[in-house]
């Protein structure tokens, strides 16, 4: 009976789904269908991956990428959150600040790469700037929309009870916007990871994006697959960490966070 409880039909089909994916990969590689011949099958990938994960090169590359993403993300959160709150709260601020930012927003972070190299001396600040641009707008919009979603009655009630601007900010604006702010943080983290991979491919020395591009250029194809998996794991762990924090501290907000 215990077996039956663990092995529900849903889980069985889910396992079948993942196994099917792995089986399709293995068969395509083993039969050498088209370019799959260049790739390692899952077992070989694990072998290459284990060898790589224990190497110094892995430690260097991963710490470069993580350092770039997290620095850029933290900077974006520090700057864009207060700015977004202000733009969502004060109409005048929104009118002065938002149109200029709306002009810059449709430019994807990747398109900033040449300009970033021009602005900053060296690779490091350029890559961080590109990730910063990627994380900045989702965080900004998260904070702004968070404030805009707050019921106007809350502001009126706080004012009736004699709250000044600072009290309204602390007791109404920030807590009301917090779930949306965290959503922005999580989206910003995702885009920062995308941006770092692209920036490292194009401009970088070191980093996971540079590594998979280098692996392609040197025809060390198995390393590409390993790199992709590592990027996926670290990226989703970063987002999961943010959601975990949001879930812990925003229990009152339901599952909006």
């Amino acid at each position, binding site marked *: 009976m215990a077996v039956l409880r663990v092995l529900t039909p849903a889980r069985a*089909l889910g396992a079948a*789904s993942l196994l099917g994916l792995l089986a399709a990969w293995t068969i395509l590689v083993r039969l050498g269908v088209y370019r799959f011949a260049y790739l390692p099958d899952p077992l070989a990938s694990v072998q290459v991956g284990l060898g790589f994960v224990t190497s110094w090169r892995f430690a260097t590359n991963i710490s470069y990428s993580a350092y770039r993403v997290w620095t850029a993300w933290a900077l974006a959160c520090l700057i864009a959150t207060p700015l977004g709150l202000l733009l969502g709260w004060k109409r005048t601020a929104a009118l002065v600040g938002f149109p200029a930012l709306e002009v810059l927003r*449709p*430019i994807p972070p990747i398109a900033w790469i040449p300009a970033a190299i021009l602005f900053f001396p060296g690779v490091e600040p350029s890559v961080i700037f590109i990730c910063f641009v990627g994380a900045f707008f989702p965080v900004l919009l998260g904070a702004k929309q968070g404030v805009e979603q707050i019921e106007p009655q809350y502001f009126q009630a706080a004012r009736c009870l004699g709250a000044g601007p600072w009290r309204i900010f602390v007791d109404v604006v920030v807590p009301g916007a917090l779930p949306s702010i965290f959503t922005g943080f999580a989206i910003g983290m995702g885009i920062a990871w995308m941006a770092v991979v692209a920036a490292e491919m194009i401009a970088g020395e070191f980093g996971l994006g540079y590594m998979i591009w280098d692996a392609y250029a040197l025809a060390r194809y198995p390393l590409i697959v390993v790199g992709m998996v590592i990027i996926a794991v670290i*990226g989703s762990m970063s987002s999961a960490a943010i959601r975990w924090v949001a879930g812990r501290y925003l229990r009152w907000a339901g599952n909006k966070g």
Partner: protein
Amino acid sequence: MAILTARFRGLGARRQVKRAHRRWRDTLLRTLSFAILVGAWLLLVSLPGLEKVPGPVSVLRSALGMSAGPFLAEAVRSLFRVTAGFVLGAAAGIPLGIAIGCWRPVRYLAYPAVEALRPIPPIAWIPLSILFFVHVESQIIFLTFYGALFPITYNTIAGVAGIDQRLIRAARSLGANEWHVFRRIVLPGTMPHIFTGLSVAIGITWLMVIAAEMIASRGGLGYLTWEAYTTFNYPTIFVGMAAIGVLGALSSALLRWINRRIMPWRNRL
């Protein structure tokens, strides 16, 4: 009675004046916003160490001096790659999302595999795409397609999941068959979410096309911008960025317009 209407008219006029004032003030503030942007740019360029960065004037001059033909040709190339990937992504993602959302066996079978692939950022597929596709055009279109696929699929799934089950039960008890339930309830109920997915996807396809063109270096606005950097043609970098921004904003606006036309009952996206 006459006095009353007159007073109301007076009130209306005052309100109109107030509103006109407000509109003026708003326009002024918005103009100020752009002025600040240009001012910040001018200030940035005059900083020591940033002599290489072109100012707004030289960028404008370079944009006006450019021959329109080749520039438009690059823009059309990027636009084609974005459109092709986007349309393919929608054609695959919407049915996949509806199938995963509607049929439990499909959900159990397909969802874990989709979920396993999702965390890989589309950018990380660039080397494999170049390895797999011989033709540059198909390399880039695969990447834009892949970037569009996941947001569309996931939002479609969320849309189907958000449909009120009572509507479906009510329709069934009124004698609706599967097709009717799908056509009258599932599809219209999912549409707003599909459009959310499409509007996220169009942003990601633009991001993907620029990255892919910079790396694959076969034409397009991304390549133009990168090439401008490597050939020290710095003002062109900013012309390219502006063109990318304008086209991106236009495609999002087009999508919003279609959304309003198809679903007039929902004016917010």
